[in-house]
């Protein structure tokens, strides 16, 4: 369980995280979504108290991370920036971390096997590929059998097999009842793994809801209609909340009406339909819509400030 309250972080004049409040609950995968540079990694560093917040507060399992007696047992973290000495072997890296908590060598071996690094465990980490580095980071995160798992961009650099493995891993961790907090700038990846989403842009929270609701709310339903009488149908489809766009002749995209309503309207007016398909917006589209609103809001904000000045 991670609880952030009004978390704020400035680096000089730059505000990286802006009044961010959220709760990450156990038992589900919570996606932390935002474009690159939106403050995801900074937020995770604040949770681990690697950086001190400018304002606000964040606790893990009821305490500041620093105040836990066995931190690796509370949070297993994979940070986006590499956090391993390139001159040391994977085995010794994990062993050194394990020893701080009195965790034995057997556990180190188990974690190496878990992430599939057995053959290269004695090699220096500097020679590792990006994907192997990610696997080592995940092994380090799992060392202490943590109740909260926090992974920053875990699929970066992984091959398709590795990506699939991470998905299974995240699901399994959540099914164990652990708190799973995963960041990504890839919406498609999040739509496959996350049950819940916290979306940020420019350090501010844009959305905090279930993945399903996020897609539904942000997109509204789009219905694809193919008809030889496009012009006639378009004339009938008018209303305050209805928008009709035409991608190509004979093809309409209708927002604000259900497929059922469009079908009935067409039948009542004798219009022939060749296709009538409700479409769900992708997470990408939903995300773009939301962040665009956020940016526009900010731009408008700026203008009004200028007007006042």
């Amino acid at each position, binding site marked *: 369980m991670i609880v952030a309250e009004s978390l704020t972080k400035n680096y000089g004049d730059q505000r990286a995280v802006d009044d961010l409040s959220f709760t990450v609950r156990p038992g589900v995968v919570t996606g932390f979504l935002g474009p690159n540079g939106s403050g995801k990694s900074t937020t995770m560093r604040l949770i681990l108290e690697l950086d001190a917040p400018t304002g606000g507060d964040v606790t893990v399992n009821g305490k500041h991370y620093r105040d836990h007696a066995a931190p*690796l047992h509370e949070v297993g973290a994979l940070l986006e920036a590499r956090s391993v*000495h390139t*001159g040391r072997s994977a085995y010794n890296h994990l062993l050194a*971390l394990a020893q701080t908590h009195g965790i034995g060598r057997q556990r180190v071996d188990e974690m190496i096997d878990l*992430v*599939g690094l057995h053959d290269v465990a004695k090699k220096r980490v500097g020679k590792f590929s990006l994907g192997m580095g990610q696997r080592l980071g995940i092994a380090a995160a799992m060392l202490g059998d943590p109740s909260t798992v926090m992974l920053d961009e875990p699929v970066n650099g992984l091959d398709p*097999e590795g990506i699939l493995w991470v998905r299974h891993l995240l699901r399994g961790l959540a099914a*164990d009842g652990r708190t799973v907090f995963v960041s990504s700038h890839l919406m498609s990846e999040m739509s496959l793994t996350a049950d819940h989403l916290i979306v940020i842009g420019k350090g501010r929270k844009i959305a905090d809801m279930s993945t399903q609701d996020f897609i539904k709310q942000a997109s509204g339903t789009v219905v694809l209609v193919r008809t030889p009488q496009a012009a006639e149908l378009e004339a009938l489809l008018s209303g305050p909340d209805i928008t009709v766009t035409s991608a190509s002749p004979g093809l309409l995209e209708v927002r604000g009406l259900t497929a059922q309503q469009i079908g009935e309207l067409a039948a009542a007016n004798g219009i022939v339909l060749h296709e009538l398909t409700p479409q769900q917006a992708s997470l990408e589209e939903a995300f773009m819509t939301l962040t665009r609103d956020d940016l526009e809001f900010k731009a408008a904000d700026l203008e009004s400030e200028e007007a006042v000045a």
Partner: protein
Amino acid sequence: MSTVSQAQPIPRLPHTGRVTQLRVAVSEWTKLRSLRSTLWSLFAAVLLTILLPVLFAAITSSHWGSMSPHDRADRHPLDIALAGVNVSQLAIAVLGVLVITGEYSTGMIRASFTAVPKRLPVLWAKTGVFALVTLLLLIPPVLIAFFASQAILSRHNILQISFSHPGVARSVLGGALYLMLVGIFALGIGAIVRNTAGGIATFAGIFFVIPPLMNILPSNWNDAISKYLPSEAGRQLFSLTHDSNSLSPTAGGLLFAGYCALAIAIAAVLLVRRDT
């Protein structure tokens, strides 16, 4: 890596211990011994501490016949026996800086502080482990250097001095103690500067650049100030003779240890306060 795509449950850990200072020290020992740079630096320090005195003793004894009385009077057996310390201090200082800056340059520090978020136990453990390893590893070389150089010089019956002679045992072992303190001082500087090149440059500035600059000052100023510099104060630990322009071995050693404590204390304050 072909078997990992199946969903594998994370094996549970039946017992998780808390972080203790002793456990962090064990971890730092693992970190120290598992890097090649450490092993090479320590190997270089050991080798230089032994080989340079042996070399100087051999040169001195073979040239003794052709040396002027003035040159002969200038030679001192302990200067020869501890000549290696002056050089190996550089290897120890570089390693002292690297022990901490290596973690910053690679990002390892984030893993270290995630495992030990209170941070200070990491600094205490690093300092303690490195100091102990340096001291224990370098006591044999300074003893070997003394007895080996004496053995070479004794073939010509020159420059003999007994280990039981007042101050000799203290000077020889003081060489190892000095190297340990140099390591601690360098580690403190590395933790403050957090950058390898900057740390080594700062150390070199304090130990090798500032002392000769003192000669520019009026000589009474120079005499008054120089003996309190870290390098001069520390040097008294392995100098046999002392005059009015130098501190006693005890005073010098304590002052140098004080400088080391100050460097580590500043590092500790910054370590807790700064973002990583």
